[in-house]
């Protein structure tokens, strides 16, 4: 029982970060219909921004959050404005290929700059934890979860209250109508892509606190972001949040307990984490194809 409680907490803590990775990916996908395969690379860049600021200036990773957001926002904005905009109306395969190529390019440049060494930011509070009964809660992961929730909260407010936010949502609902109302779509698209990259950047910053940093660190997060989006429903902040938490909890609780025997080989527990998460994903697709919170689109 105690272990279940611990795993539930682990799942929520892991889910928060998965949600933050996914929210930017989901916005870009939902609003622009671009599956951004460079999202994992943006996560990685965010982690390196934090690493550089931490090693050169001893800047606390939490304080580098706005900097990695701005840095990645600018990069994302530029990429959309001067690169993806050329093919944004092309079939989805074209943008797929373009972002895949971008991802390779970014990862390989990172490899040249930072080499394949694994790096880490080791703060004075790394690994500090407290106990709630039998459950141990690491401070870094709790703060990461709080930061992830706060960032998604601010994002949701901005999308619903600000003028630009409303223009973004209007564009996602009906491009033609939005244009008639005076929304400059190419500008909005660049902002959305920048936002997606910026959110990936802050996720990278937070991941750097509990994981090691290397040029390929973003790959698994791209895959989980994909799953989270489909689970929660595309293009909405709440969807990514619910999807992330669901995915995290399933991974850490149910998946960790199963044992399967195939032939003579016993595959137990955590080896199946990904498989179970994706089986749930399939079930969601069958039962509720729009995701848990997704809306039906025409």
């Amino acid at each position, binding site marked *: 029982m*105690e*272990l279940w409680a*611990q*795993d539930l907490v*682990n*799942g929520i*803590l*892991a889910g928060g970060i998965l949600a933050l990775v996914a929210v930017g990916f989901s916005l870009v996908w939902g609003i622009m219909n671009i599956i951004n395969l460079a999202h994992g690379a943006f996560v990685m860049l965010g982690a390196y921004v934090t690493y550089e600021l931490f090693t050169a200036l001893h800047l606390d990773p939490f304080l580098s959050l706005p900097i990695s957001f701005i840095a990645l926002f600018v990069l994302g904005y530029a990429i959309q404005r001067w690169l993806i905009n050329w093919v944004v109306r092309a079939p989805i395969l074209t943008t797929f290929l373009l972002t895949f190529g971008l991802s390779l390019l970014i*990862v*390989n440049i990172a*490899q040249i700059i930072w*080499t*394949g*060494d*694994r*790096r*880490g930011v*080791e703060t004075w509070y*790394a*690994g500090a*934890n407290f*106990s709630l009964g039998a459950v*141990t809660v*690491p401070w*870094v*992961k709790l703060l990461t979860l709080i930061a992830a929730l706060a960032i998604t909260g601010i994002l949701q407010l901005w999308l619903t209250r600000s003028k630009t936010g409303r223009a973004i949502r209007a564009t996602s609902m009906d491009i033609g109508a939005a244009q008639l109302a005076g929304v400059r779509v190419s500008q909005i698209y660049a902002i959305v892509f920048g936002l997606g990259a910026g959110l990936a950047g802050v996720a990278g910053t937070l*991941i750097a606190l*509990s*994981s*090691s*940093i*290397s*040029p*390929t*660190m973003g*790959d*698994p*997060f791209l895959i*989980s972001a994909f799953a989270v989006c489909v689970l929660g429903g595309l293009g909405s902040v709440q969807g990514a949040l619910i999807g992330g938490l669901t995915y*995290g909890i399933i*991974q*850490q*609780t149910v*998946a*960790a307990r199963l044992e399967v025997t195939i032939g003579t080989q016993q595959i*137990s*527990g*955590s*080896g199946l*984490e*990904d498989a179970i998460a994706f089986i749930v994903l399939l079930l969601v697709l069958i039962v509720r194809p729009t995701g848990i919170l997704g809306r039906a689109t025409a």
Partner: protein
Amino acid sequence: MFLRPTAVLGVCAIAVTLLAPVQSVGADPDTIVFGSPVSLTGNLAKEGHLTQEGYEFWKNYINAHGGLKVGGKTYKVDIKYYDDESKNDSSAQLAERLIDQDHVNFLLGPYGSGTSFTVAQMAERKKVPMVEGNGAAEKIFNQGFKYTFGVLSPARRYLEGVLEMAKAQKPAAQTVAITAASDAFSQEVAQGAANWAQAHGMKVVYNNKYPDTATDVSSVISALKATNPDLVLNAGHVQDALLVQKGLKDQNVQAKGYGYTVGPDTPDFANSLGKDANDVFGAAQWSDAVKYHAAAGFYRSAKDYAEAFQAVYHHRADYHNAESSAACLAFQYAIEKAGSLDPEKVRDALVNLDVVTFYGILKFDSRGLNVYKPMVVNQIQNGTLVTVWPAGLAEAKVIWPTPPWGKR
């Protein structure tokens, strides 16, 4: 006929690709060319670069000392690399390209058991001898391959030294928890460690695996913590070793000792974790503390090798560097003994090889695996890696039991 510029470019690109192998390095009759698909990008890039350093270090030594003498003629050596992007399939395809298009004489192994396995199949099909120093899974050697040789101690023996050491301490470790990544190498390590522990009266209280691409291993750590083990063992690679060590502190797991396969021996481990890396044990194929009186032809001791290596690469030679150089040495002695570059003759010489090097003995069992060399155990003490086991090679006393988190 009019061609669009893009089409012309395309045709040119194809033509260049097709023509390129013609000018390959294999054309020089005075050079022995080795080929290696090695991970220069992808998730094993760090280890891949260490492998390449080990190869290059040997090559430069040989060329600086006049080359290799083969049947009265002296040859320069060269090594051609392709980046396999840490992918098993690419590694085999590149090996095929090295053999068919670049006409390399021999293959040096890639990094990792997964890639070594696929390249071994290619070496077998093409009948080109390969010596590898970075794939320790016995799966590679249980296929009846005749052209693949590994200079490593096998995976199942990786953590035996750590277990033996932990059992000899006071208070002795009686219970063991094992976590392992899901790849073939790590699974063999975990299985071997569990068998050794049980055979020597220790109790395995936890033994589970996690996906080798895991980004969060919390549930494994929680379950392991619930069993309250004396000794925590991890079989994996640098990235997940870091994840596990961070997770152990996050959840305040207090064991008497913590042992890893790949991890503590690379500088990344201590660099990333700072004080939290202290007192951790790492199993190693080699350390610069090992004492062997090596045969002539290369550095005569581990210390000489380490000093010369440090001067060139400005970091301490780790065991990946050493085992990679050792793979080259196996070829060096076999080729000299064979007195020929004929693949069959060199293969036969490898089968009968029995030579002591700075790295240890190089001798292969009937499967092509070096089961004759022991492993060593290192410990990170105050930020520095020191050899602590076997006792005869120890540079420092074992720190045991490991102090609580925050006091290391």
